[in-house]
């Protein structure tokens, strides 16, 4: 009986995920194109203006653009997509079915991860080509990447669900995208920022995402990376708690 429930749980999650993927399948190429274009253009632009830089700074720029691609798809696009679904009456359908809320939320989170991943990989490959450096790769990078994306996607889902209207979602997600990318240690090191921004940065998961990825891609797994990852798991859990507590799709 228990086994049956477990199987049913995953079947339900898989079907909800398939529906989410089906919603975007015909626009996926355009969405990914757009999501890749911004980080790649930023990458190339920085190459034009920065001139000579050491490998450490170049790595920071590439990793910063990888985080930018996560922010764009996992937060910005996802928040707007969810807001569109919410205010377009999509949730009436889901809430009338005997499905678990956790599965509905997880399907959106996985959808966010999946759509963020391609541009993340493209920037990773292209960045090394453009700047002519070799980043470190090990298998542990895969779970680190997933947890990193998950923590950011949680913010996107929260904004999409909790916004009072689609316009608000648009403004908030655009503001956060620009602020987080350029005013927190995503493209630059923490010590290059004014102290107020440094303090704000500690409250954002992207700071730890950038640090974790930087650690993994430059020296590999260390205790520090483990700590960053632990903080990201806490961020992910908090996002999940906020989403599940605040979404009142049923009584």
């Amino acid at each position: 009986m228990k086994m049956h429930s477990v199987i049913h749980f995953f079947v339900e999650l898989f079907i909800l995920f398939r529906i989410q993927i089906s919603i975007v399948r015909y626009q996926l190429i355009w969405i990914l194109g757009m999501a890749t274009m911004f980080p790649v253009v930023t990458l190339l632009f920085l190459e034009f203006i920065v001139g000579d830089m050491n490998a450490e700074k170049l790595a920071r720029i590439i990793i910063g653009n990888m985080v930018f691609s996560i922010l764009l798809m996992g937060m910005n696009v996802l928040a707007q997509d969810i807001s569109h679904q919410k205010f377009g009456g999509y949730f009436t359908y889901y809430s009338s079915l005997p499905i678990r809320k956790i599965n509905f939320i997880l399907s959106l989170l996985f959808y966010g991860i999946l759509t963020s991943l391609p541009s993340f990989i493209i920037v990773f490959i292209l960045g090394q080509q453009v700047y002519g450096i070799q980043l470190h790769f090990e298998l542990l990078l895969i779970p680190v990447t997933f947890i990193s994306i998950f923590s950011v996607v949680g913010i996107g889902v929260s904004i999409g669900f909790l916004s009072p209207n689609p316009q608000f979602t648009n403004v908030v997600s655009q503001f956060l995208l620009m602020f987080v990318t350029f005013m927190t240690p995503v493209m630059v090191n923490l010590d290059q920022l004014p102290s107020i921004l440094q303090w704000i940065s500690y409250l954002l998961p992207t700071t730890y995402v950038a640090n974790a990825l930087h650690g993994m891609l430059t020296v590999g797994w260390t205790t520090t990376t483990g700590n960053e990852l632990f903080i990201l798991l806490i961020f992910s859990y908090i996002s999940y708690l906020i989403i599940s507590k605040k979404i009142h799709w049923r009584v």
Partner: protein
Amino acid sequence: MGERIYELEHVSYCYKKAVQKANDDISFPIYKGEIIGILGPNGAGKTTLIKQMMGQLAPTSGTIKFQGQDILNDTKHLLKQVAYYSQETFALSFLKVWESLYFTGRLRGLTRNEAKCQTEGILERLDMNEYRHTLLKSLSGGQRRLIGLGTALIGHASIMILDEPTNELDPLKRKLVWEIIQEQNQKGVTIILVTHNILEAEKVVHRVAVINHGKLLAIDHVTKLKERVDQRMRLEVITQDESSLHIQEQLGVFGEIERMEDTKFRILIEKKQVASAIESIQDDRFNIRQFSLLPPSLEDVYSKIHEQKVGEWL
């Protein structure tokens, strides 16, 4: 009357910042195996009531019991048994026709084979097989509505709540939908029907609840409600042209006459006068193009209820 599936007790709902209650002290039961129509004009509070019955909104006050249990305590039990056809099918817009049915079936707990089998059956019944690989967003409004109905049909629900199922449908498709509703009812499915289409609904519903301004104005069996309106027959005549200027005076002798359109009149006639009235109007001087004789309809009941004070029909 049979087993009570739903029991609404003094249900009220008020949206945030709203001045007026969307539902105001509504109480009535719904019995197993019946088709109950919930009628009312736009903004009457029908959809809010349905959303509360689906567990999507919690009543501001009052309770809704489903099979004896307050639905706030066990929404999942309710959703396993109730299939809801909403007017909003946007969630499925980017799915192919077969996918929207199949996925809904799977989410209602059907096995892969059951879902496939039922999908095929529903596509066949709705005559939508040729569109099985078409995206819902590419279908016409009426076709989308049919597939929306299909998503309510799939699964093993014992209760169906249908919100305006015949909107945007052509006459043939409407007929099909009414047939399907009756078929489902004959299989034992309880149907809760929200509709504006009073004339057509009259043929299938057993009981009617009329709502306006959030209040329940009337609830009873259709025949009992009809007994409470003017029992005179409705003789509707359409004249050839507007030249029959004196027709109103001439036909008025048979009963109370009302001009509905330029060339269309309705006369309320006592049953014993029907034969003589019909004989008379066939006289050439009336220049009648067509006429019809109708008994009191649910539409008359509906109009009458709205003319009277709240509570008079309860």
